[in-house]
């Protein structure tokens, strides 16, 4: 298959970037999107150029490292997958494909398609955990968790922290990411003691990082490779409001 690639190239964080065009020829239909880029890169390097930099690691859709916006849609138009799970057979021969980084002020571009998502780590560090010292845990089965709660918590915990939600959001909001983590922990009995503190701390850190806010358009949910529902955002709104009220009056 042959494609025309329009790729965002940017040498360094402060350099000016622009779209450059590459012809990707004789690409096997069974290749994944990243393998297609590997092939293109190999040819660029052989031709004396510098390869297109992009983040990737596990290449099986779980590490959350790959991060391309393909034709305007993070991880491409196929739903429920990451870029590394997208295969070229999903495109038509001769397609022009725009490849851009995940764009958000809170995700500065490091080089080409590589962005810095450490804002997510700082949000987790602000409150996305249950404080339990190693060794101080009680017997695992001493705390039954209703299966429905456990399942709902799991649905939220499936987040891989890739940042597609931010990239897809019209406002570059991180609410799906933060909502998913808050829901994962707040739904479990283990997470209850720190529920309020967690909601307040994570939202404040999220705001401090310069993310936008949610306008309930659910683009995040549509591109989430783990199909996390935007109802976790509703829950975060509720948890945050309750926590704020408690903080104000208690």
């Amino acid at each position: 298959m042959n494609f025309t690639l329009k790729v965002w190239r940017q040498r360094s964080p402060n350099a000016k970037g622009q779209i450059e065009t590459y012809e990707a020829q004789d690409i096997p239909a069974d290749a994944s999107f990243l393998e297609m880029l590997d092939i293109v890169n190999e040819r660029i390097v052989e031709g004396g150029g510098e390869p297109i930099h992009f983040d990737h690691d596990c290449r099986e859709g779980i590490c959350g490292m790959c991060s391309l916006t393909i034709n305007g849609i993070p991880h491409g138009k196929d739903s429920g997958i990451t870029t590394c799970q997208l295969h070229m057979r999903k495109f038509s021969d001769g397609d022009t494909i725009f490849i851009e980084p995940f764009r958000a002020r809170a995700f500065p571009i490091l080089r080409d398609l590589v962005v810095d998502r450490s804002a997510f780590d700082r949000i987790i560090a602000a409150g996305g955990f249950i404080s339990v010292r190693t060794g101080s845990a009680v017997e695992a089965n001493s705390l039954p968790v209703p299966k429905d709660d456990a399942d709902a918590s799991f649905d939220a915990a499936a987040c891989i922290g890739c940042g597609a939600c931010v990239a897809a959001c019209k406002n570059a909001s991180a609410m799906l990411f933060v909502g998913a983590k808050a829901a994962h922990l707040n739904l479990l009995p283990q997470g209850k003691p720190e529920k309020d503190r967690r909601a307040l701390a994570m939202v404040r850190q999220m705001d401090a990082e310069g993310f936008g806010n949610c306008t309930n358009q659910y683009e995040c949910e549509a591109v989430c490779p783990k199909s996390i529902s935007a109802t976790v955002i509703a829950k975060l709104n509720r948890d945050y409001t309750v926590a704020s009220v408690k903080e104000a009056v208690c």
Partner: protein
Amino acid sequence: MSTNGSLNSAIPAGPLAGKWSKHKNDSKLINPANKRKYSIIVVGSGLAGGSAAATLSELGYRVKCFCYQDSPRRAHSIAAQGGINAAKNYQNDGDSVWRLFYDTLKGGDFRSREANVYRLAEVSANIIDQCVAQGVPFAREYGGLLDNRSFGGAQVSRTFYARGQTGQQLLIGCYQALAKEIARGGVTMFPRTEMLDLVLVDGHAKGIIVRDLVTGEISRHAADCVILATGGYGNVFFLSTNAKGCNVMAAYRAAKRGAYFANPCYTQIHPTCIPVSGDYQSKLTLMSESLRNDGRIWAPKSPEVAAKLRKREMKAADVPEDQRDYYLERKYPSFGNLAPRDISSRSAKEACDDGRGVAATGLGVYLDFRDAIQRLGKDAISARYGNLFQMYEKISGDDPYSMPMMIYPAVHYTMGGLWVDYNLMSNIPGLHVLGEANFSDHGANRLGASALMQGLADGYFVIPATLPNYLAGEKPGAIGTEDPAFDEAEQAVRARVDRLMAVNGKRTVDSFHRELGLLVWDKCGMARNAAGLREAIEKIPAIREEFWENVRIPGDSRNLNMELEKAGRVADFLEFAEMMCHDALDREESCGGHFREEYQFTEADEAVKSGYTNPGEAKRRDDEYAYVAAWEAGAPGSKPKLHKETLEFENVKPSVRSYK
């Protein structure tokens, strides 16, 4: 304490079940007020490194943690699907610490240390408690209690799981614990930072040299000890189920500084991966082993039928029953499709070597759900494996409900690693090694659902207890980065980077990596023989030489440069692969993940005559090879030096595996 040649395994004396308790009681302690004076470097942030960094910080040590990924949450532990074993006996099916110990030891084909494995089984229950308290959403029953399943052919249900994402959930629990400590200031995190060398001061590990992968800046970090938790070396094969970034650099750099590398030839080949579809392929995808619970594995009986299937002139579903060879069911009737990983993998290879392979490349067999769908209905199968079927379809483009999946074995895990004693300290004082990066617990073959267990056991429970045994003898903060040893190490690192950049040849890094991978897979993969290994030992230096003369790394080293990163890793694989082949050549027996074609049971063997096992099965040679092969790296191209640690079995008698 037993001493073994130059290797002191520091295994405590006394009865097996009491060793760990006794050792903890005998271990040194550090006063809480003094702990903060000690600094610790942890390289790697997966289950082992992340849990160690978080726990040591909780104890009060000052920790610096490094990872090459953009966040500690992305370490490759995340990709483990199946589950984590623990001897909780929640199912009341007769499980116990002893049974988990025995299964792990036997699964490792009696090539691991009794004491280490027993300790692993012992702390396994604490891991589950810890993870549940952290909010890891393990599968539960309607009563709200934890669910278990049987995994990897175990006779008891002791595996805890979180859908097909157990590794992810455990890692996120561990990452969150780490994040908590980062926020508290106990851990300083260095993401996108790669360790390029280990610094020894007077023979003790006291620091590392790292490269900031974004700015290219090379810097030094000193500490009172160094912990490596940098995972396995499966990517030496180029194609594996590992993440693309997984590498041997940190471990091999330590080996170059004198740490012994133990059992590098033990690599686990996972039987159920999606076959290779072409040269462009960058990695292999694992399909959960749980598929073997309902899928039947077969290859066509005749190469002619296989040829038609390969050319897609015929559909798998149209192959008549009498033309199908359900080879695992045929050869191992009592285990059938659930035969152990190594046996299952090797049988697939045998079928393909017979010309009966089915994928376009001829390297694939079928995993067929036809009968299970007929028996249980499509909905039941979809409920059990829906997400896996979907994943398969996304990757291969075929619908596994209507045509059988194709699978082929792929490199998955490496049991070998840096040699460590019972304290998880290598032969270099102060250098501790955890998780897949060490060799300690899995022997020659790892039991399913025990990698996660080992990583977390090492990080949460073992190293916090054993580290003071080293630290208490050290004056905290005695070594700083101004020590001349850091100058030497940093210069060496800079020289190596400059040398790589200066080659400016014609071939890409990947092309070398692929060439090396193919060679190692061919000669030191699922089955090895002396001639092939010798050939590999001859060819690897040639590839390495060409690499250093003809590799092309564009750009500069003072910037984000992924070709340079890859080149550094491949350069080490090019040396390490040779050590691996030497180990495989030295080990003249077949055990676990290491199958030497010269050593298999024949009709002449007593065990075959008595009907205990079949001809063609792996033949272990306990009399001569019940040892850990710990290799001391030499100069590139020279044969590494072998040190042996004899394995003593005081509590169990090594038995010949029989899966008849």
